[in-house]
C-alpha cells in the first residue's frame, strides 16, 4: 500500500503540469507569432522546471543519504553504554552495528531509485549523494568493527592463532631417574 500522504517524486507527471499551467482559455486562437513565442516561453519554463526538480531531487537524495546514518550517534551511545563484556545485549548491539550498514550498502541503488527519472538513462546527478551514502555506511560499519575490536572478538592478536600453531617436535627424550 502506498502512503497517500507521501509525495512520490517519480510519479509526478511533468507534461500534465505544463498543461495545468496553461492560462489559455478553451477555444482561444493564437496567432502564429504568438504561438511561436508562447511555445518558446513554455519550453523555457519547462526546462527551468526540470532543472529545479532535479535540484530538489538531489537535495532530497542528500537528505536521504544522511538520514540513513542518523542512527549512528545513537549506536555510538549504545555502544559506549553496553560495555566490553560479551553478553546477550552486546552481541545484539554488535549484530545491529554490523548488519545495518551492510544492508544499507546492499540497498544503495534501491534507496535512490525514487529519485531517478523513468525514461532517462542518465543518473549521474545522483552519484554524489550515493557516494556520500556509501561513505557514511562504511563509517557506521567501522564503528561496529571498532566495537568488536574493543570487545576483543576480532582475530587480530597472536592469541587468536595460538590454537593453530603446531607443537614443537622434541628431538631428545630422557628416561630413568634415580637408581633403585
Amino acid at each position, binding site marked *: 500500500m502506498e502512503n497517500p500522504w507521501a509525495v512520490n517524486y517519480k510519479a509526478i507527471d511533468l507534461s500534465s503540469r505544463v498543461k495545468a499551467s496553461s492560462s489559455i482559455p478553451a477555444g482561444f486562437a493564437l496567432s502564429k507569432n504568438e504561438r511561436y513565442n508562447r511555445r518558446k516561453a513554455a519550453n523555457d519554463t519547462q526546462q527551468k522546471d526540470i532543472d529545479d526538480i532535479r535540484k530538489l531531487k538531489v537535495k532530497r537524495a542528500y537528505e536521504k543519504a544522511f538520514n540513513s546514518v542518523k542512527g549512528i550517534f545513537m549506536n555510538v551511545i549504545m555502544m559506549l553504554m553496553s560495555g566490553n563484556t560479551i553478553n546477550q545485549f552486546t552481541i545484539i548491539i554488535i549484530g545491529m552495528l554490523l548488519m545495518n550498514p551492510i544492508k544499507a550498502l546492499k540497498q544503495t541503488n534501491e534507496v535512490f531509485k525514487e529519485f531517478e527519472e523513468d525514461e532517462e538513462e542518465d543518473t549521474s546527478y545522483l552519484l554524489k549523494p550515493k557516494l556520500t551514502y556509501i561513505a557514511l555506511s562504511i563509517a557506521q560499519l567501522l564503528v561496529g568493527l571498532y566495537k568488536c575490536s574493543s570487545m576483543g572478538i576480532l582475530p587480530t592478536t597472536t592469541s587468536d592463532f595460538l590454537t593453530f600453531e603446531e*607443537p614443537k617436535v*622434541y628431538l631428545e627424550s630422557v628416561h*630413568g*631417574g634415580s*637408581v633403585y
Partner: protein
Amino acid sequence: MYRHKRLFSFILVILLVINSTFALYKDQVGVIDWYQAHVGTPKKAYFQKVIGRSNLIVATDHNVIANLNLKSNNIYWRHALKENDKLVTIAPLDNFVVSLSESKSSNIRIWNGQNGYLVNEYVIESANNENAEYDDLLIQNNNIYALIHGKTIVKINNVSRSQEGKFDLQDNNHSKLFLNSKTNEILAIGKNNKGQLIVSVLETNGRIISEKTVSNIKFEIDDVFFTGEKLVLKNFNNKLYTVDPKSGSSSTISYEDVKELVHVKDNVFIVKTESKDNLVKINDSVEELSAFENNDEGIISVFTNDADSYVSKTSVSKKESLVVEILNANTAKIAKAFEIKNDYSKNGEIVKVSLDSYRNKDGVVLFRIFTVTKDGSIHLYKESNLVWDSEESLTNIVDLKFIALPEITKDIPEAIKNNENTGILSQIVSRIKFQLSFLKKSNDNHSQNSDILKRDPYGFRQLLLFLTQKGKLICMETLTKQIIWTRFIGNDVQNFNGIKLTNIRSSAVQYPPLVAVIGTFDDNGKESSIIYSIDTITGENYQYTNKNVPSVAKYPYKVLQTFRLSNEEKEDKTRVIALVKSETEVDFYPNIPEVIDSIKEMEQPIYFNLNDKIGGNTLRGYKLYINDEKKPQIDYLYKKTFPENEVIISYGFKEPVDYVASLGKVLGNRNVLYKYLNPNVLAVATVKPHDVYTSVLSIYFLDTVKGSVIHHSYYEGGGESSIMKPQIIQYENMIVCTFWNNGAPLEDLDTKEAKKLKKNIKKGSQIVVFELYESEIENQKDPNHEFSSFHYIQPHIESKAYLFDGIITSIGVTTTRNSITNRELIVGLDNNELQGIHPVFINARRKITPPSNEDKQEGLLQYRPIIPSSEKSIMNYNIPVVGVKNIVSNPATLESTSLVAAYGLDIFLTRRTPSNDFDVLSEAFNKPILVITMVSIVIAVIYTHIKIKSNNFKKVWKIQPADKVEKAEKKDK
C-alpha cells in the same frame, strides 16, 4: 473409646514409619568417591576382653593402634600416630590399651579399649636417644611399668592416674621387663654390648636389689623367659638354661636340641624340637606334659587369661589347607583341631597367628584364629570358617597404575581383529554386523553382560593396579571399589621387592592391556631382578605370540634403572623395556633381534639418567644406542655434582599423562607468552645445613639431556621437618615445590637486620611456584620447529613463593584428557585432609601491585603471601584419609573430569572437576521441560503451517469463512 483407638493406631502407624535416616552435607552432594581405611600389617595382635567382650587389638607397622571388629571387616577405632612417633609396643590393662611410642620423648598413652578415646598421656623426656628401641611395658594390676631406652623404668598408677616413680638403671641395654608376683619384684633383663645377659631386680618402689651380669651364655634376647622364679633361656646352640635372677647363677638343663621355645604361662612352655612340639614344665629339669599330634612345621600361638590357657599350633607345611590344633595347657589335653583354608596363590603362607578363646551363651568353648599372611593381609577365622579378611598389604604400595579398560573384551569377530588382511569395505560390513549382534545380545540378556569388564562412555570405569612392596598385585575397579583379582607373586621367588609397574600395552579393541611388573629378589644370596608380563584383565601371565619371549624373565643382577622405550615388539605390540645393569651394560625385554634392529633404526639415541637416591648429590647422564656390531652401547655424557654439603632431598614428579592443550599463556592484552615445554627438565631440591638459618634449600632445574643447570634458586631456612619432606611436582610449564621453612634465626633479635629477617622469613610450610616461558617478551617465540636441548634457549622463569597453612605430606595434580581444563594442585595434609588448590592462587604471575585492567582480564589476583583454604576445597570433606604418601591422577574420557587416587595408609579415589562440569548437563537441568517445549514448538509450527496454507488457499479462491458468508448474506438481504 473408639476415637482413642483410632488415635492410638494413628500414633502407632507414625511410630512405625519413623526410622533413622542418613543425610548428606551440602558439599557431599554429587561427589562420587570411595574410601578404604586400613591399619597396616600387624606387628603385634592380641585379643583383649573389654567389658566382657573379646576385642582384637592390633599394633601395626604403620604406627597404628586399632580395635578391629570381630564380626565384619571394619575398624571400631584406630589411632595413627605420627610418622616421627614410632609405636614400640602395646599392652592390655583391664578395659584399656596402653601404648608406648618413641618420638623426641617417650610417650605412654592409655586408650579406652571400647571407644578408643585417649584417657591419659605421659610424656617422658630422655637425655639422649640411645637404645630408643629398647622399650617394654609391664602391667601389674593397676600399675604400668615402662622400660624406656633400656635404662629407665617409669611406674604409672592407673587408678590415681599419676606417675609414681622414675628409676634409672646402671646399664642401658635392658630390653624386657618381667614381674615376680611372689616377691613383688620387677626384673629388667637385657643383652649388653658384649652379648652377656644382664639382670636387674627392683622392688616396686624402685629400690634396686641387684644388678648382675651372666657371662657364659650366648643367646638371643627373644629367647629369655621368666617362670615366676627363674629365667629360662635358650642359647645359640639350642640348649636350655635356667638363671637365678638374684644370684645370677646359671645351670644347664639336659634336654634334646630345642629349635624354639615359647612361653605359655608360669613354668609351662612349648618346646619345639626336631621331631615334636612338646608342652613342658621347666623347673630344674624338663617335664613333658603333652605334645601336639601334628608334627609338621607350624606356628605356635598362646592364649591365656585368669582361668584358661590354650596353645594353638597352626601347621604351615601344607599351603592351601592348614591344620590348627589347640592344646589346653591346664589339662594338657587336645581341646580341638580343625582346618582352615588359605588361598596360597593370593596371600602366600601364614606368618603370624593369634589365638582367642571364648565361651558362647551355652558355655561351650570356641576359638578364633587371627592370621597374618606373607603378603601382609589379615584374616580372621572362627574355628574353620573365615569371618573376614582384609587387604592390609595395600598399605605398602610401591606403585599404582590406572589402566583404561578395553571397549569390549569378548566375542570380537575375526575380520576386526585381522584388519591388515581384509579390505576396508568388508571391515566396515563386519563391524556393523558385529555391532548389530551386540545390540541384540545386550537386549536379550542385559544382566549377564554386566560382568564383562568394558569401558563406560565417560571413562570413569578404569582399573587400579597396585603393586605392593612384598609383591602382591591387587586390581580394583574404580567405580565400585570391587577387587577384580589379586595375585601374590612374592610366592615365586625369595624376598621379592617390588620396584615398579610399567604399562607396556594400553588397551585396544583386540588386545588386553598389559603391564610389566619389575622387582628384585634374592636368588640364593645373589641379588637378582625379575620382570613379569601380566594381563591386567585377568591377572595371569601373558603368553607372547612369539615363543622366544618369556612372560617371566629373570636377570642375575639388581637393576639400576628400568625404563620403557617407544619401540614396540612387532607381533604383540608391546613396548620394549630397557633394564640398566650397570653404567656400561643394558638388557632389553623382550630380548629378540628385531628389537635391537628397531632401536638401531631410531634417529636419536636414547638418553637416560642414573641419579643418586635421595640423600646423594650427583646426577649422571648417559646415552644408549646400538653400535655397528649390533650390540647396545652406553656412552657416558655428564655428571652433575652439587656442592659438597648439599644433599638431594627431592626430585620432581611428573604424571605419565601430561598433555598440553595450549602452547602459550594468553595475557590480558591478548598477547601470548610462549610456554617452555622442554620435557627433559628435571627439578631437584637439595638442602644444606647453615650456621645462621637451620638449613638452606636449593632448587635446581636441569636439562637432563646435557646436564646443564637452567635455573637455581635458594631459600634461607628452607628444608625439611620430621613430618614434612620437600615435594616437587612438574606439569606443563609449571614446577611447584613445597617445603618446610625453619624460619629466621631467633638470636640477636635487637638488631634491625634480624627483625627484618624475622619479618621476611616465616616459619611454616611454603609453596614455591615456577612458570617457564620461552621468552620474557610477549609474542616472541623460538622460530625453530624442532626443539633440541643442544640449541641454546634459556627460558624465562617467573616464580612466586606462598605460605600455606598446613603440613604437606604429598602433592599431586589433576590430569585431564586434553588438558584444556585447569590443572588443580592437590596437597595431602598431615591432618588427614586432601586439599585442592585452585590454579588461580598458585600463579607465578600474580603481581604485588594492585591488578591493572589487563591483569584482571587475565584473571590475575593481587599477590598475597598466604594461599587461602576454604572448607570447600577439601576433597575428602569429613572422611579422614590417613597417611597419604602419594597422589596420582588419570584422565577420564570426559574432558572436565580427572580421577584422583590418594594412597598411603588409606586409599581414597575421587573425581575432580577443576573447571566444574562444563561438559556435563547440571543436575538441575530439567530435561522433561526441554522435551515438552521442543515438542510443543514443533506441533505449533506444523499447525500454523497448515493453517496459513489453507488461509492462503481460501484467499486466492476468495472463499470466505462460513460465518462471514452468513453475515454478508444477511447484509445483502
